[in-house]
């Protein structure tokens, strides 16, 4: 699979028609998705219309937008005009179709990208494995017996399978970073409040983020740039202007100059298995990072994120739980109910802690520019696994995949997850989080690009 920007460049100079790039993706989906189960909906008519419009624009000699002809797909919690936004749930079947695209989909459309469809996910984004009982599990393209990660499992798997070069997902506690790690692709969770969430189905409004997956850092940066912008209608969108990053990712040997890079120890070492530790050490060695940096209050932050997620998620769905609980995903319905019943004091305490926590994390970034940590404790687990072994202890599989991502998103820091292959390209990948201070996506992308350029991080298409 060629990268998204290489497609856009080829379309721009007339080497490739957008319609041909699209047909390549459609054929790849047809050949692989019965096994991977990444897509829940295909928007072929729309995609062909959008691709043909790009080709016609070029034929007229009109200037093309930056992502012209780039095929992509989105997690099925993004509104797509004309489709019901199901958010992975059959409870929402029968709801009215969306009357407009989500804002990020509108921005990608305006940038010339071609929408191919919607992608599998954990119901209402409450999960780390995309074992969706309604439409079947999304399978890891690098080992079809294993999970793709979640909740944006379809988004990661579609890129890993070479079905599309770019996808969008959401991340509350790790739902971009976990599947990126397990599927071996690049994933980006921007700063909380950077990208508007308007037109996406919410999960935990105070922590929800949206972001891209791709097979190259350049594609992440290019798509992120066109999705940026203020949105006064999303109260959680705090960005007031665009801060382009694509140029920052192409600084060559200068990419690391002046950066203070550390590797997190303590909690992030204790909750990482041996392969995760090997991966972050590989990245740290390549970057000359200082080891054993201590992230403040990581265990407390995970607890507070857990409580916040349960309360907000449970409260959001309480009305549906009263009447249609039997139709919810069996793997998450009891957790939603438990969240709806949590005492208010737990939630308020978690939110009060969050203010203190933010100050501690910001203080850490006066000493460091970029910090590294494993994205998941282990590589992809078998579909259906209830537990995995973590440093001699059996832990519950589904919640524990987020052990290392939850503390970071609760602080709202931007993270680029980069895929490493510490046991070789024949084995399973695992991701490393490249973490920067809030609003410094440029630094995380620079470091991620350096790891890609020196060959430490890479996202090969799965052999299927």
């Amino acid at each position, binding site marked *: 699979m060629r990268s998204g920007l290489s497609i856009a460049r080829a379309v721009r100079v007339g080497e490739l028609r957008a319609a041909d790039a699209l047909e390549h993706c459609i054929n790849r989906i047809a050949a692989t998705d019965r096994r991977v189960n990444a897509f829940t909906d295909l928007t072929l008519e729309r995609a062909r219309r959008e691709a043909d419009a790009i080709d016609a624009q070029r034929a007229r000699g009109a200037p093309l937008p930056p992502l012209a002809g780039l095929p992509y797909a989105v997690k099925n919690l993004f509104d797509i005009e004309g489709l019901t936004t199901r958010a992975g749930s059959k409870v929402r079947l029968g709801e009215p179709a969306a009357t407009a695209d989500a804002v990020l989909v509108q921005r990608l459309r305006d940038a010339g990208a071609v929408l191919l469809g919607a992608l599998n996910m954990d119901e209402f984004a409450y999960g780390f494995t995309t074992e969706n009982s309604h439409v079947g599990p999304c399978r890891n393209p690098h080992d079809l017996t294993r999970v793709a990660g979640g909740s944006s499992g379809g988004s990661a798997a579609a890129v890993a399978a070479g079905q599309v070069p770019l996808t969008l997902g959401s991340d509350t506690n790790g739902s971009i970073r976990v599947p990126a790690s397990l599927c071996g692709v690049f994933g980006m969770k921007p700063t909380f409040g950077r990208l508007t969430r308007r037109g996406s189905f919410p999960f935990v409004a105070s922590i929800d983020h949206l972001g891209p997956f791709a097979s190259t850092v350049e594609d992440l940066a290019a798509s992120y740039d066109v999705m940026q912008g203020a949105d006064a209608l999303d109260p959680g969108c705090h960005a007031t202007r665009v801060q382009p990053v694509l140029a920052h990712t192409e600084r060559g040997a200068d990419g690391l100059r002046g950066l203070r890079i550390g590797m997190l120890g303590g909690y992030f070492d204790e909750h990482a298995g041996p392969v995760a530790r090997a991966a972050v050490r590989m990245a740290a060695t390549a970057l000359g990072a200082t080891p054993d940096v201590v992230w403040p*209050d990581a265990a407390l932050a995970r607890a507070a994120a857990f409580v916040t997620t349960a309360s907000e998620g449970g409260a959001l769905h309480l009305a549906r739980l009263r009447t249609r609980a039997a139709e919810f995903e069996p793997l998450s319905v009891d957790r939603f109910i*438990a969240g709806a019943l949590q005492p208010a004091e737990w939630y308020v305490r978690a939110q009060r802690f969050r203010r203190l926590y933010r100050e501690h994390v910001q203080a850490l970034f006066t000493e460091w520019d970029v910090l590294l940590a494993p994205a998941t404790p282990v590589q992809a687990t078998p579909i259906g696994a209830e537990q995995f072994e973590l440093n001699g202890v059996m832990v519950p599989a589904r919640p524990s995949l987020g052990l290392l991502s939850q503390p970071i998103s609760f602080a709202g820091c931007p993270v680029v997850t980069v895929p490493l292959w510490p046991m070789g390209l024949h084995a399973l990948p695992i991701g490393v989080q490249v973490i920067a201070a809030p609003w410094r996506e440029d630094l995380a992308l620079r470091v991620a690009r350096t790891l890609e350029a020196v060959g430490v991080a890479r996202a090969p298409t799965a052999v299927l």
Partner: protein
Amino acid sequence: MTAATDTDDTADYVRSAARFLDLPLTEAQAQRVAGHLTRTKAMVSLLRNAPLADDLEPAEVYCPAPFPDADPEANAP
């Protein structure tokens, strides 16, 4: 309090709170929900031990309006 009593208390809480919120639960569901809530309660105990000053307000998320660029007096006639 023993672990068994704690679990029973949590199940009692789940049944009562669910009734109060008009949320129908089977007994099997109530037991499973109590299990989740018990695990969350253990995590909350970490937060309970974290010192939080009385005047520490929750982190803000919602912003009712953008902060004005100019003072109101600047445009006064």
